[in-house]
């Protein structure tokens, strides 16, 4: 099971932080969600391969809120609890497109490198 704990660590490589932001923004494209919901959806969508270090999700969410990539509102959950719901903004969608493009370019480059190694790493 992959653990994305270091993803939101400030000392982590930039590409990893960008990966967390990209996944969060992508999850919010499906509709507003609170932090716990985002973490669960990433975990479920990745078939439990990717597991966000849950606490680390919040600095990332707050940073994106400050950069106006997401907007936050307080609402009531299905269970009647008060929670902070995040929604992706237009600016956030534009950033997501850029992240996705960069990710495609980077992952394609990594694949080419691995193929050049003959698959015997």
């Amino acid at each position, binding site marked *: 099971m992959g653990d994305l704990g270091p993803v939101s660590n400030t000392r982590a490589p930039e590409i990893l932080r960008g990966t967390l932001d990209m996944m969060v923004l992508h999850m919010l494209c499906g509709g507003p969600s*609170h932090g716990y919901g985002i973490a669960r959806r990433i975990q479920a969508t990745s078939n439990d391969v990717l597991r966000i270090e849950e606490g680390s999700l919040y600095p990332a969410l707050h940073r994106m809120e400050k950069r106006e990539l997401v907007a936050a509102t307080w609402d009531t959950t299905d269970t009647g609890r008060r929670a902070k719901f995040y929604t992706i903004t237009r600016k956030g969608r534009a950033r997501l497109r850029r992240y996705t493009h960069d990710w495609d370019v980077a992952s394609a480059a990594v694949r080419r490198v691995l193929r050049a190694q003959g698959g015997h790493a």
Partner: protein
Amino acid sequence: MSWSEGAFRDEIEHHLEASTLDGMRQGLDEATARTRASERFGDVADVRRRCRRVALVPRRAVVVSLGLLAGGVLIMSLVLASTLRELAAVRARLDTALANPSLVQTGATVQAPRHTVAALLDEARRANRGGDWSRALVLAERAVRAPEATDAQRCVAFLSKAHAHRCLAQPREARAALTAAEAELPAARRPDLAHRIARLSARPGYR
């Protein structure tokens, strides 16, 4: 985005409660589920510190913009202050020169005396034409006393004085001024002034 301790606490409590409920749905007892939820969440104090820093530290773009703005204002202030200082110094020199040309001795004002004497003579001429003879006398006297005045300028200044004295019904002073103007003639080398003195000498009020 400002920092709110209460909002942060509410958000994290919701997260832990939801995670605990999930654990209980999977068959864990409440205490175990809560412990597991806390473990999965990590260090709340560390998360709080990082969220607070995000909220309180200004965005880099804002810091850069403010820095550039402050720099621009500082540079403009320095340029403006320097310009105002220069203007004040120039004005002070001009005031001094106009008030008392004889004091003009050194520095940048040395470059201006001919212009200053010429300006005094022009002003004296205008005063004579306007009937302000007392003022014409003062201005002409200043031109005469200006050490940088040329012989021709002194000659013209004496002629201005002569005219003003004549208009003030002071024939003796008018005559003296005309004589003084005549004395400047050899050095002035201005035939037009010689002709003018000769013409004035024949008029009543100078004799």
